[in-house]
């Protein structure tokens, strides 16, 4: 893009001058590179303001809340909430629930999203645009609606419940799984499959088709082509999809309000809030944020993950 070398040189030069000179250059820029710098800052400013007001400051207050001595106002400093969080095996159980469930649902939904993205991008399906719309539609549905969809399938009066009951000759109520852990698993998949597919479709769109055609021409079977030509190319996208889908899974909350089959971190935060244990809820929020932040930063940095939407 343009002359990155020159621009690079311009910025290094500027960083060596003093703060007042930088300010001066921003207020009355003399060179084109100074003007460009001012434009960059001006264009970043609205977003920066939003992140500050709606993100950074509230999170700072959440940190203060978590170390507060009083539940209803932030005063003093104590690490009691964190001590309870890390010392009590109850919370360790909740954390484990969150982690294993998010891992399992992420593996399943990325595993299902790969063939979906493959079929959408590589096969000449009749009405392809319609399939894309249908797979993407659930992205705009909140978790509570995803849970309702699972009730329609597997609830006490659910379609599949009744089918299974008829086949097995049992009461529908006894085979209904909607409000159990498997039902919750499916409700998570309902929200997560469309999101993973969206990420992977972006990866598939950048594939090098010539290499695949060459492999086919040399006699590779479709599976061999996928395994040795396509998969190495989409691996960064798959890792990126894992990271983002795992975050989605950890953050799911609405679904759990309808199907409370498993006590996970977000649901526990809500219970602490309802019980008035504000410092503890704050500590849980801080731990959650720190974990997902570090996980994402490290994940995107130290793997070959590529996130292209």
């Amino acid at each position, binding site marked *: 893009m*343009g002359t*990155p070398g020159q*621009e690079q040189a311009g*910025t290094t030069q500027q960083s060596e001058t003093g703060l007042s000179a930088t300010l001066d250059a921003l207020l009355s820029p003399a060179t084109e590179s100074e*003007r460009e*710098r001012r*434009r*960059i800052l001006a*264009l*970043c400013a*609205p*977003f920066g303001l*939003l*992140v500050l007001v*709606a*993100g950074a*400051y*509230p*999170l*700072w*207050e*959440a940190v203060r809340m978590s170390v507060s001595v009083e539940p209803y106002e932030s005063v003093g400093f104590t690490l009691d909430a964190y001590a309870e969080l890390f010392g009590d095996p109850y919370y360790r159980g909740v954390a484990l629930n969150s982690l294993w469930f998010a891992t399992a649902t992420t593996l399943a939904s990325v595993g299902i999203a790969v*063939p979906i993205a493959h*079929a*959408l991008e590589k*096969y000449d399906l009749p009405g392809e645009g319609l399939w894309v719309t*249908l*797979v993407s*539609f*659930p992205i*705009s*549905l909140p978790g*509570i*609606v995803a849970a*309702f*969809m*699972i009730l*329609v399938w597997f*609830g006490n*009066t*659910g*379609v599949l419940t009744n089918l299974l009951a008829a086949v097995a000759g049992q009461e529908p109520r006894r085979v209904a799984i909607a409000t159990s852990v498997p039902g919750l698993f499916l409700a998570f998949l309902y929200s997560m*499959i469309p999101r993973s597919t969206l990420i992977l479709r972006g990866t598939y769109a950048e594939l090098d088709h010539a290499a695949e055609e060459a492999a086919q021409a040399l006699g590779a079977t*479709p*599976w061999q082509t996928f395994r040795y030509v396509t998969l190495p190319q989409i691996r960064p996208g798959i890792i990126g999809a894992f990271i983002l889908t795992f975050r989605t899974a950890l*953050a799911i*909350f*609405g679904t759990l*309000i*309808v199907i409370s089959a498993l006590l996970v971190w*977000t649901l526990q*935060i*809500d219970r602490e*809030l309802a019980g008035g244990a504000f410092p503890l809820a704050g500590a849980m*929020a801080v731990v959650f*944020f720190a974990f*997902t*932040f570090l996980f994402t*930063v490290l994940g995107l940095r130290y793997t070959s993950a590529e996130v292209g*939407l």
Partner: protein
Amino acid sequence: MSVSRQAGRPGVAAVLFLAVGFLIAPVLLTIAGSFATEWTGALPSGFVTFENWREVLGLAETIGSQRSMGWDTLLSVGGVALAVPSELFFSVGLALGGVLINLVVGVPIAYVVARYEFRGKEWVNAVSVLPLVPGVILGVAFLRAYPNLSGTSFGLIVGYSLLKAPFMVMAVRSEFESMPLQQLEESARSLGASWPRTFLTVIVPNARSGIVAGSIICWTLAAAEFNFSYVVWAKGTQPLALFLQRHISNSTFTKAAAAVSMFFCIVVAITLLLQRVGTHGFTTRRT
């Protein structure tokens, strides 16, 4: 010849069809069920009734009347009052407010990332496209940071805009990346336009389709935002997602189906509307 040649393609296509069935069949059943009087067996029965819809929209008296939607008078002209369902209208407005903020913050930063090279660009990029804070966590943080504002419409709008900003940035950025930005900018500048004028009247109108796409995504996601709303909402008119949750948790199955179907209708309607606006001049293009 080989298993993979024979089974591969049908197998992969079957996963797609099964997944679409799993995702879409309950949507269709829900819409059908909203017009049924009963849904105790496998399929809804007793068609066709509009009672569920009337009750959900607050047009019919219900026993737990607090469960149905309230109606507010929007404006009255000469004794004729135009009333609107309050939850619906409230949510449409909240989500639009969020989209408005997203436009102001999202379009410029998308341009920066697509157009310029500078130190720390990776970080700006990462911060702007990654959903940094989950809704529940942001809700907890808002409760303490803005105790008086968090439950109000202003607090909800600001929260929504932060939560959904990445989607606006992604949509607009990919549009910018497909445009010859430097050429556009240079031609406009060489014709004498100042830089702010170039940005506002040349660059932004040309990225219209990306901006409209981003607005649609942000609007639907903000209207559907449950986690944040659930934590911070205190009293007054409920955002739509909470209204839906109340029905799913407390109402009969057919009535809940009507509430959820109403939500489907809104999502589809707003998507179509914004698409129309997009093709008929969302921003004034000077020719």
